[in-house]
Structures are given as C-alpha cells and as structure tokens.
C-alpha cells in the first residue's frame, strides 16, 4: 500500500467515511474468499478508508508474526530413521510363542557375542549401522525452505567450517569470499545422500541456495528437481577431491558451490 497510515495510537473512527472494519465480509476478503465481483469493490474501499488500511496492515503483521513464531516444522532425518526402524519392527507382528522364545535366545546370544567382541577390541564383528533412508536433494531443499531456511549452526568462523567438514567428510574445505549479494548462512546436517551429507545454506540475491556435500561413494542418481512455489529448481553437480557437491537453487547456473573448495592449510582437527 502506498498511502501513509494514520498516526499509530488508535484507529481514526472520527475520520469521514470511516466504517467499522470488523465483520465477516472484510475478513473473508483478507482471506481471499470473496467472489471476484466483490473483490474490486473491497479493493476500492480499502484504498479510500484509512481505518480499513490500518486493519489490513495489522492483519498482515499478525500473520507474518505468527509464521515467524510458529515456523513450519520438518522432522529431522534422525527422527525419521527412528520411526522407520520402529515401523519395520512393528510390521513384523508378534511371533508365535515358540518362535518368540527362539528369537529371544538368538538375540541374547548376539548381544553377548557383540559385547565380548567389543571388550576384546575385535573389529571383525560386523558393525550394525543405523538405518538410513536417502532423500532426493531437491526434497531436502524444499523442506529446508519450508522450515524457514535456517541452518543448524551459523558457523561464523572459517576455521570451524573447515573443522566440521574435516570431521564429517575427512576433507578440509574452506569458503572463498562470496560476491556481493551472496552470503553463507551456516551449515545443516539434513541427510540426503547419507547420514554424513553436510549442507551449506546460502542466500544469493535473496534466494535460498543449498549446497550439499558428501563423499563420492555416497553419491546417488538424483531425480529431476521439479519446481518450488511455481519456480523451476535447478540441480548442479561437481566432483572434487573425492567429494561430490550438489547445488539446488532457482538459478540456472551454480552461484555458491564453486566457492567451497578444498584447502591444504593447517586447520584445527577438532572444535
């Protein structure tokens, strides 16, 4: 709205033409529910009536604040993995009593064997990795944007970014200076290719850009990224030093992944 609003204190009920803004019709209009033939009437009325403008601006602010206070939530990959495990276990159903006894015995033997092997430092016992279900990276992107596109860790120090990639992917990476209009928001661990996939969240010209990094051996063929909120998404891929980089964004060319590069500089091995 281009017109200035009346002084902030209270609604100007004494202004000529001011009408009570409350009413189901006005809220239906704000909610986008009035028929087309009435929309133009309401728009004209809104342009003429400062008290309606006040209410509309206030409602907009209420909606924005609610969305900020209650951002859309997405389940963490760890939680989904746990649900999947419980679901698989539940889908097995209760076994007949004689099989249940045998299964308990076998489980007990396994627990004892694993325990003894661990105590003996025997590394030949197969490691039972937790269940992980890969997620298309475009879906990781959509979930991140729907959740407010906030990183788990803001990572302001370059040394810490290097240390995190070293710990998670055994490779030191550092972020080159990004051009004007681009900035790194931080890091997240959203899953995707594997449990170790590390995502760098950026804003480029105001748009969310996600760079996902993982070991090359964890790479999986990605489906077409599709669209998000009417805009086509683009998926860019590169390989460097045993790592695979994916950038997902609305941009037809990579705008961030090229600034995340391996480094040979000494960096702290822990943080």
């Amino acid at each position, binding site marked *: 709205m281009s017109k200035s609003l009346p002084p902030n204190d209270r609604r100007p009920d004494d202004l000529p033409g001011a009408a009570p803004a409350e009413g189901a019709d006005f809220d239906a209009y704000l*909610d986008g529910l009035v028929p087309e033939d009435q929309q133009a009437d309401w728009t004209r009325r809104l342009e003429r009536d400062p008290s309606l403008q006040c209410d509309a601006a206030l409602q907009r602010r*209420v909606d924005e604040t609610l969305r900020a206070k*209650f951002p859309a939530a997405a389940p963490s990959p760890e939680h989904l993995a746990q649900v999947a495990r419980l679901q698989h276990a539940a889908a097995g159903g209760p076994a007949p009593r004689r099989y249940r006894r045998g299964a308990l015995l076998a489980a007990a033997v396994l627990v004892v064997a694993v325990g003894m092997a661990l105590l003996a430092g025997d590394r030949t016992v197969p490691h039972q990795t937790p269940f992980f279900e890969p997620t298309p990276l475009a879906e990781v992107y959509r979930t991140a944007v729907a959740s407010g596109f906030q990183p788990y860790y803001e990572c302001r120090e370059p040394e810490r970014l290097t240390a995190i990639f070293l710990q998670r992917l055994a490779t030191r990476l550092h972020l080159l200076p990004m051009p004007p209009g681009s900035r790194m928001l931080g890091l997240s661990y959203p899953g995707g290719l594997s449990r170790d996939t590390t995502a760098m969240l950026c804003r480029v010209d105001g748009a969310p850009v996600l760079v996902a990094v993982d070991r090359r051996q964890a790479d999986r063929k990605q489906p077409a990224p599709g669209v998000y909120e009417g805009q086509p998404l683009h998926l860019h891929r590169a390989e460097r030093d045993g790592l695979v980089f994916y950038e997902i964004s609305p941009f037809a060319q990579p705008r961030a992944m090229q600034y995340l590069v391996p480094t040979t500089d000494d960096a702290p091995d822990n943080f």
Partner: protein
Amino acid sequence: MTSRQEPPRENSESSAESLPASDFVAYYQQAYPKLTALAAGVLGRRDGAEDVVQQAVEIALAKGLEFESPSRFVAWMAGAVRRCALNQRRKTTRRRTYAASPTDLAAVAHAASTTASPIDPATGQLEREQQWFGDALIAALDDLAEEARCCLLLRTVADLSYAEISELLDIPQGTAMSHVHRSRQLLRRRLADSPDVDLTPPPQKS
C-alpha cells in the same frame, strides 16, 4: 472434536490394504507440519509441539496400529496429537512453570511481504518493538479457545484449506472459517488496544 472414522486395527494380521512400511514414513513426513501446527494450537505455544507429535507417532507404532489409507493415518494422528498436547498443557498449568522461550530469530517466511523484515540482518536480532508485538500476540493467542486457535494456526501457519482443516479436526468447514475470522478480529482488537504496540508500519527498506 470427536472422530467419525472407524478406529484403526490393533495388532491384527497384516492386511493387504494397510500402509506399506515405506509409505508410512513418507506420509508421516508429509503430515508432520500440520500435526505440529495442531499441537502448537492446543499448547498455545511452539515449544514442545514437535515433542508432542513425536510422542503421538511413537504411541501409534507401539500399539502396532495399521492404517488403511493416509487420510485415516492423519485423522488418527490428529486425535492422538490433540490428546498428548492437552496432557502436556494440563501438566504445565498445574506446575505453573513455563520453559523459557529462547529469543526467536526466525526470519519472516514470505519474501513477497511488503513490510520490512523485523530482523536486523546485521545482528539477527528482532527489533525491540517487534518483540513486544510478538509477545502481545502470543498472550492474545493464548486467550483464544483451543479449537479456534488450532484453526487459526492451521490456516495461517500450515496454510491448509478450510476443507483440510475440517477433515483434520472433524468439524464443519463453516465452523473452521468462523473460528479463523473471529480469531483474527479478536487478535486485531487486542493488539490495537495494547499501549505497548506501535501500529505504525516500519519504513520500507530499499
């Protein structure tokens, strides 16, 4: 809110029509945002909403429930989420203690908004007045009836249609719409009357 749907089967023989294991997680993931908004609506706050949803799905899994369709799954989950959230709210009310709410640094979600972001991009901090506005809004939200608050959050935050809200809460669409519109009017009236709230919109930033 009472469920009109048939209850799911418990611990039965596997049914050819029940949700496959691989789909269960996908439907849960898809339903998660609206279930969390529902939990937040019952609780009156965001803190603890995800815990409630996770508690509800663990109950479903522990019972070994089978759902014949995604809509039945969501309907059952909505009921379970509401019960878990009500229990949590009663505990909080009895104890008269509240978890300290961390400073909310969430950026405004909609980039197309014509009002300036309440977040200072240099510091990431909320402008002070916006903090008061937010606090006043949360206090006013808590005074709404639970069902009205749920409808408002499902519409505003989870962006559900009134048909979807109606199905989730098992109430008529018209009732859901009335709840949302009346709640909005009440909140505007409360905030307009609040002396701590500056209704002048912040200046537009280039």
